[in-house]
Each structure stands twice: as C-alpha cells, then as structure tokens.
C-alpha cells in the first residue's frame, strides 16, 4: 500500500508541471507590459524597455518557459518578484501562515458545526431540528461569501459595534472572517453529512447492529457514521484545500494580509514570478491534501485499502517484469 501512496505523491510532479506550463502560458498571453505596470504611464519608453530586458520578458516565450522550469528543477529557484525585487518566498513566508491559520481554524469549525448537525438532522429526519437546520444550511449555502462577509460586518461591526472588521491583530479580529468562512462551509458539510447518514442508517447492517442489542448511540456512531465518513472526508479535504488557496474575496473584504490578496495584486501587476510561485504552492498543497484524503479513505474503509494494496502490487509486478525482460 505504501507503494500506492509513493506513486500518488510522485504523480504530483507531472501535475505541477502541467500547472506551471498552463499558468505561465496564460500569464504570458494576457495583455499588459510588466515594465510599464511597474514604472507607471509617465515613465519613458526606454526605461520600460530596459526593465523588460532585465526581467527577460523580451525573449521568446518558449525560452522563458524553459528557463523558468529549468531553474526550478536544477536550483529550486522560483525567481524574484518583479515588484519587490526580493525572492518570491519573502511574500509567501509572510502571508501563507496567515491563510494557513485561518483555513485550519475554519475547517475545524466547519467539522465541529456541520457534522454533528448533519447527524442530528439525519437521525431525527423530518423533526423540527432537521427542518430548521436544513433550511438555514440551504440559505447560507446559496449566499455569496462576500455578501455574507459584508452583512456580518454591517451587523456586528457597524450596527452593534461588537467586533472589529479589518485585519487580524487580536483574537476578536478572527471572529467575523472565520464566521464568513465557516458558515457556508459548515452548511455544505451539514447537507452532505445528512444525506449520506440517511443512506447509511437505512442499511441492513444498521438493522443488524440494532438486532444485536447495540445502544442507539453506538448504532449511529460506530455503524452508520463510519460508513458515511468517506464523502464527508472528501468534502472536508476539498474545502480545506480551497481555503488554503486563500479565500481571495474574504481576504479583500476583511483586509486580511493573506496569500489570496497578494495573488490578486501580483496578477494585476503582471508580477509573473510571484504569481507562478503562489500558484505552484496552491496546486502543491491541493495535491498534498488530496493524498491525505486518500490515506484517510484507506484508514476508514478496508475495501478501499484492499484496492490500494492491489494497485501497489500491480506496480510491483510490472517492475519485476521489466527487470526480467
């Protein structure tokens, strides 16, 4: 099975390569002139040309792309930001931890709120608790994040003056951005938990558990929930990975110095090395989270584990075949 996961991790490399080529191409074919963006419209053309020459953007596209990829492979060199003239990691190191912290807190909040409410809604289907939580989840799930953020700001920040609305300097500053992240995420999780739990508690093996004399609690948690966990884990993984990608809108609304905000700025400034570095970081974390989701699957479901083992074995056979040939 370890082979399978090693294979999965190695598969990240071609994925990343694809992402690099794609984003680099898009950044290159979109209109805009890096030198002009940085120096401003009043700068003389000669200065702009000189700067562009320094960045190397006057070279052909394939040369630049090849150069960039070669730099990463051989020297792990992601370049310098054209705006700050510092390594791209300076911005990332300053801002990624903020986003990471926010995403971690948000995913924990989502799970703590969404999953238990989803279980209650499923176990007590058609009860008032089910009805209320489903309706609220539907409302929160269909509201755009920036609108929810602005409304929360308006109510708690402006009208009630209870909470600060910009930055992340004190714990109180975290409340509104976290609510804006958690509420829609938790409602999505609630819905998926409810529907998979409903499916599972109708299964024959749940009846078998009851017929054994198991307590209702154990029937719900040990028998039904364990089977319902796969889709829940998937949704959690995807939500978390997206939040790691920086909730651009939320960061803008609440003026949070996160990674999403700097990405948008860099795109606007055509700061290609910075954009590339952040995008690579996003896709890398996304791939990594998905591998963890896969590992979680294999721990939760022995059937999935067996599949992974079989997949690992197949690799082994092919390899030994190659050696023999």
């Amino acid at each position, binding site marked *: 099975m370890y082979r399978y996961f090693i294979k999965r991790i190695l598969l990240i490399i071609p994925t990343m390569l694809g992402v690099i080529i794609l984003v680099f191409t898009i950044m290159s074919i979109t209109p805009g002139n890096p030198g002009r963006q940085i120096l401003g419209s009043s700068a003389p053309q000669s200065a702009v040309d000189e700067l562009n020459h320094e960045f190397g953007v006057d070279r052909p596209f394939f040369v630049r792309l090849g150069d960039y990829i070669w730099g990463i492979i051989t020297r792990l060199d992601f370049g310098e930001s054209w705006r700050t003239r510092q390594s791209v990691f300076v911005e990332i190191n300053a801002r990624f931890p903020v986003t990471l912290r926010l995403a971690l807190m948000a995913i924990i909040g989502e799970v703590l709120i969404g999953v238990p409410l989803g279980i209650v809604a499923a176990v007590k*289907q*058609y009860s008032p608790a089910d009805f209320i939580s489903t309706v609220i989840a539907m409302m929160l799930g269909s509201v755009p994040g920036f609108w929810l953020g602005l409304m929360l700001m308006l109510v708690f920040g402006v009208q009630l003056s209870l909470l600060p609305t910009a930055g992340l300097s004190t714990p109180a500053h975290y409340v509104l951005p976290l609510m804006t992240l958690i509420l829609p995420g938790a409602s999505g999780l609630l819905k998926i938990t409810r529907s998979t739990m409903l499916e599972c508690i109708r*299964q*024959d*093996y749940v*009846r*078998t*558990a*009851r*017929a*054994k*004399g*198991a*307590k*209702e609690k154990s029937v719900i948690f*040990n*028998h039904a929930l*364990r*089977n319902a966990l796969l889709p829940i884990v998937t949704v959690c993984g995807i939500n978390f990975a997206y939040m790691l990608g920086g909730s651009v809108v939320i960061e803008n609304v609440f003026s949070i110095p996160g990674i999403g905000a700097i990405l948008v700025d860099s795109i606007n400034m055509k700061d290609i090395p910075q954009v590339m570095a952040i995008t690579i970081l996003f896709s890398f974390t996304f791939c990594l989270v998905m591998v963890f989701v896969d590992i979680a699957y294999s721990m*939760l*479901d*022995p*059937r999935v584990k*067996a599949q992974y083992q079989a997949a690992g074995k197949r690799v082994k056979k092919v390899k030994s075949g190659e050696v023999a040939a």
Partner: protein
Amino acid sequence: MPNELLKIENLEIVYKTDMETVHAVNGIDLSIHEQETLGLVGETGAGKTSTALAILRLLPDRTAKATGRILFQGEDIAAMSDEALRELRGGKISMIFQDPMTSLNPVISVGHQIAEALALHNTQNKTKEEIEARVEEILELVGIPANRKNDYPHQFSGGMKQRVVIAIALSCNPQLLIADEPTTALDVTIQAQVLAMMNELKERLKTSLLMITHDMGIIAQTCEKVGVMYAGEIIEYGSVEDLFEGKQHHPYTIGLFQSIPDIEHKKERLEQIDGLMPDPTNLPKGCKFHPRCKQCMPICREEAPGVYVEGEHRIKCHLFGGTSR
C-alpha cells in the same frame, strides 16, 4: 409439554405513509414453545419478515405501527424499557437476516462484529481474551477458520457471509432464533450445508427457532410446526405432518404444494396459482384469497372465513365451515 416461549396475539402491522396505507400483517396468532421449530411459509409480501421484525421491535417506528400483543416468556415486548429491549435483542432473541451481502457492516472486521454482540450481552463478565476465544470458537462452529476473524466482509463469499451472520446470531446462545430466509441468497449446496449446520446447532444449543422461508423443502427438513401465511394472515397452521400428510388443506396450501415438482410423477407442466398476491393497500373483502381461489363460493366474497380446528391443525377457510373468531 414444554413452556411457551413466544406468544403472538392478534398482531397487526400497518405501514402508513403520506401516499398509502399498507396492511402488511392482519391479525395473526402464533406461539413457539421451548426447543420447538416453527416455520412460516408464504409468498413474497405475505408479511413474514414484518412479523419477525415486530418480535424484536425493529420495524421502522416512523411509518410502521404494530398492534396486538407479543409476549416473550410472558412479558409484553411492546411495554419493555429500552434497556430490557436491548437485553432481549441479540441476547434472548436473535435474528438471522435475509441478505448476507448487506447485513454485515463493510467497515468492521467480522471478528469484531461477533465480539460486539458478545460484549453487549456479557452477563458472565468475560474478559477481552475470553471474548476473543469465544469469537474464534463460534467461527469454527459455523465452519470458518478462526484465523479469518480479522478479515472484512468483502473478503468472504456469500455463503461465508451468511455463516458469519449466523455466527453473530448464535454467539450469545439465544433462547429464540429467528431465521428470516437464511438460505434464499445461497446456492443449493451451501443451502444444504447451512441448514444442516442450523439443525445441528439448534439441537446442541437447545434453541427454539422461527424459520421464515418460502421453500416447502426447508420446512419439511427443519420444522415441527408450520404456519402458512397469505396476505398478512395465517391461513393454515399445523404440525409438519398435518401439512404434508393431512387430508384437509386450505386451497392456497394445495396450490403451493402443486407448484412443487414431484420426483415420482411425470408431469408436463406444474400447476400454478393464477394471479398475484392482493395489493396490501387495497385488500379484497371477505376471504383475501378468493380472487385466486379455484373453489371460491359466493360467501367467500362477502365474509371473512372462520377458523376450522382439528386438533392442532387450523384452517381459515369457508370450505370447512369453522367457527368465527
């Protein structure tokens, strides 16, 4: 005569949804004595499984409503506390479910699923090691090597899964075992093995058995008493001898026997009972079998038949007159 273990009086089960009302079981009376095997035979939809589930109070409580009384050792099951009910389920009465493919929890090892039943009814304060030893013992008893206890259901064949289901049911030495079509999902060779095993275990553990099936052959092999169910009623009841050797039968029972191939007589075509089971949402007036009955009389369309009694043999049919209940 041995003591009466289970007594069902005038059991009625109605499934009510917004769309329709299904009359699954319509007033049945049954009793099972200690170490006795009672067979319930009938077509799909006759109410056999509903009756079995009602004994363990496993009917879905939102839609199903059971009236009448079910007494186990003189105690009304409907009036039991949750705790007493849990003790009953799996401890005193256990059930073998119809479909072994779905009756086992796919994410829990079979050994653990058996151990769970043992731990729940651990009246002798067995230690963990003793429970594990018992799990191995019971697996060997049903013909599965003990070293497979850590395997998961997906690693077993259908017949082996059914054995595991049986092992769970037998693990706590129940006084009454309800077997709901335990061999329907199995092929004939495995069926014979499983039946032989159940017979042997029944002898050894002195368990009473309620055998639910639609196979007359299984009835003949395992049962002492038989109830023939049709449209939620027991239309004929008696000892196996009454049913297989007796002269007087309900026309439905005759139809059932005629539809079994007879090895001693050459026949071009088997007799069949024309038509289908009546729609349980709209049961016919009078005798519920009259639309399909070859000996239907005018009175059958109007009045529900009384019960004709001869010793233990009871037939619910106008042909034999009988006393109204």
